[in-house]
């Protein structure tokens, strides 16, 4: 029995293509420029999110607001592996994804505040933002829905025979939705160029992974569909970049989909209204002090003498200025014109 069970996946792998099944690569060797860029990008996301949290507390941001603090290395590292035209789609914890794709902090913050200068003219809000120009397809509030949509983006790439990949993000919670597996099946069947990035931050809202998932190794969730997967240290931007390189190469070579389980952690509650009582303070503190994605890069930059404390302070100031400007803009930009109520329903 045991032998048979072991044999099956091995055979599945050999079936798919000559290329052998991917294994977790070593973290990428970053140049000074790459480390500095990653530091800056992650810091921008963190400071932006801190400010968003503050503005939420002040009542400037309404509804739900899900912060990305702690998970910054995932989008930052993956973004470094993409080429022009690659698409990104995610769920509702999306501010960091948009900043990583190069969308303006002003546009994102103004959307959070429901202002006319927001990316969706104030009509989408925190969970629903898009950018055709940057190939960002949302920003989706229905857990798991973006997985089928992202598979459809990959379908369009294959249909058009272009080299692009669809980077489809979802969480450990969404990984239990049925349509995820419907999508896995079609993506594998049709060899669609889609990278399924499972951001495993250990808690689906308040439910720990082990309480919700029979198989907690999310990289294995594609096995019945012959989709290979690897686990990646999602707190180390270099590990993420290496995995991104591997995955984009895998997809662009026509091998079909691949799963990257990003092992990460969110420091804040699920949303602003979640006090996160389902985990200990020690657990959060341990993550922050031992695995913080930004501190890791900072320590490396200092140790390698690639940057001085003053250099890093300058980056910090720069980032704070961008965020302050975005916050000012979001607070002074007018609300949408009332005529906007009736626009963009149909073309």
């Amino acid at each position, binding site marked *: 029995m045991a032998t048979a069970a072991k044999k099956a996946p091995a055979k599945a792998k050999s079936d798919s293509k000559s290329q052998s099944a991917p294994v977790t690569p070593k973290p990428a060797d970053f140049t000074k420029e790459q480390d500095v860029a990653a530091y800056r990008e992650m810091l921008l996301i963190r400071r932006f999110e*801190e400010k968003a949290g503050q503005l939420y507390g002040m009542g400037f941001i309404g509804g739900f607001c899900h912060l990305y603090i702690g998970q910054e290395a995932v989008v930052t590292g993956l973004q470094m592996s993409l080429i022009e035209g690659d698409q990104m789609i995610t769920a509702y914890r999306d501010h960091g994804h948009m900043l990583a794709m190069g969308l303006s902090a002003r546009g994102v913050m103004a959307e959070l505040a429901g202002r006319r200068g927001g990316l969706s003219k104030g009509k989408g809000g925190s969970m629903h933002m898009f950018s055709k120009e940057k190939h960002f397809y949302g920003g989706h509030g229905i857990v798991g829905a973006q997985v089928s949509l992202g598979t459809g983006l990959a379908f369009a790439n294959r249909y058009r025979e272009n080299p692009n990949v669809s980077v489809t993000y979802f969480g450990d919670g969404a990984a239990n939705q049925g349509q995820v597996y419907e999508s896995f099946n079609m993506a594998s069947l049709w060899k669609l160029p889609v990278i399924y990035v499972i951001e495993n931050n250990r808690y689906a809202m308040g439910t720990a992974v082990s309480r919700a998932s029979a198989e907690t190794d999310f990289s294995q969730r594609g096995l019945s569909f012959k989709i290979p997967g690897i686990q990646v240290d999602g707190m180390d931007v270099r590990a993420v970049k290496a995995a991104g390189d591997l995955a984009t190469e895998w997809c662009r070579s026509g091998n079909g989909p691949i799963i990257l389980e990003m092992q990460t952690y969110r420091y804040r509650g699920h949303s602003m209204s979640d006090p996160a009582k389902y985990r200990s303070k020690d657990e959060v503190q341990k993550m922050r002090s031992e695995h913080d994605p930004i501190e890791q890069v900072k320590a490396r930059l200092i140790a390698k003498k690639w940057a001085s404390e003053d250099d890093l302070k300058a980056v910090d100031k720069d980032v704070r200025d961008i965020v302050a400007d975005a916050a000012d803009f979001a607070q002074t930009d007018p609300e949408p014109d009332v005529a906007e109520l009736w626009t963009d329903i149909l073309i």
Partner: protein
Amino acid sequence: MPIEILMPALSPTMEEGNLSKWLKNEGDKIVAGDVIAEIETDKATMEVEAVDEGILGKQLIAAGTEGVKVNTPIAVLLQDGESAADIGKGAAPAKAEAPATAAAPAAAAPAAAPVAAAPKTEVAADPDIPAGTEMVSTTVREALRDAMAEEMRRDGDVFIMGEEVAEYQGAYKITQGLLQEFGPRRVVDTPITEHGFAGVGVGAAMAGLRPIVEFMTFNFAMQAIDQIVNSAAKTLYMSGGQMGAPIVFRGPSGAAARVAAQHSQCYAAWYSHIPGLKVVMPYSAADAKGLLKAAIRDPNPVIFLENEILYGHSFDVPKLDDFVLPIGKARIHKTGKDVTIVSFGIGMTYAIKAEAELRAMGIDVEIIDLRTIRPLDFDTIIASVKKTNRLVVVEEGYPQSSVGDFIANQVSQRAFDHLDAPVITIAGKDVPMPYAANLEKLALPNVGEVIEAVKAVTYR
């Protein structure tokens, strides 16, 4: 300038809370991320994290204070070089207008800004069919196939996906021959996975392709309704007009014959509820062809509701190179002066049979075939009611919140003075579809009911 720390909101609805305890004392150095206090509401306890750095200059609200309003300053943070003496010196960068604008926009908006009525869009008239155009007797099934084939020839971005659409040639043979002409890249057999392939279709549409998604029946699309409503219909609005989903979802809807409860349901009213969708439900083959071509070209998501029983019915279809009909325009099937019957899809069969009998009784009926359920062509309905002063609506769907109910409501609001009788709506019975032949017949509308309704509104 000292920075005020404000009482934060834990949720969109929180207006006040208790400051249960301070975790930092006056004089403590604070760095961003430090937990400085705990606040609580009846629902939750939450930590207040500092966003800025500095020295905690003063606690303005004592620990244990209840009912602290959101946005009340609770402490003052001093910056480098500032001392407690600076407190009060213009310390209010807290953007005092914040709560005012944010707190009650929902309540204030309607009063402040009288919401403009929805803008009216002009709908084109049916294209003129030149005199002498050859009319070809065509089944609805063939008309639908021809429409898709013509559009696929015209635009390489159009493709069809669904269960059994390719090699099997369509569960109801609507896609007959398409695989042979267009190949498997554009005629895509999917696994039995409605939720998934609806989402894949919407994603492909968001990327700019023009998918036609066939549901073997719209009953199965219940598994996919989230992708249709939340993804396809709303993306244009949520993206501020940047991207939408030019996609057609089509397939049979409504009762067929003896397939019972789970396979016999009309979806016209369901989808007509959703802003961001267009809903088309043709009766004749000509309308099926002209409207399906229009739906495929439409940049919006279109729900195209067919009927299994009508697939085999033949109608005259004009032999034109490019016969496209306007979505959103009803068709006057027959003019009359005594009473208006509005119907759509297979409901038209009851209206047409009733009209023949009513004519024999001397009642001159006008029949309007809606063709499109959303946007609904009220201009045509109301013009007719102003002429006949009497209205009966016929459909197969369930009675509550039906298409007919909405029409009756709108007509009573827009043309009340023109009505000489209450509007009567005829719908399927308010029961799941039974299997037994006699019960199924009872559950559906029938010609007798239509005749009785017309007699009632004409006081005959």
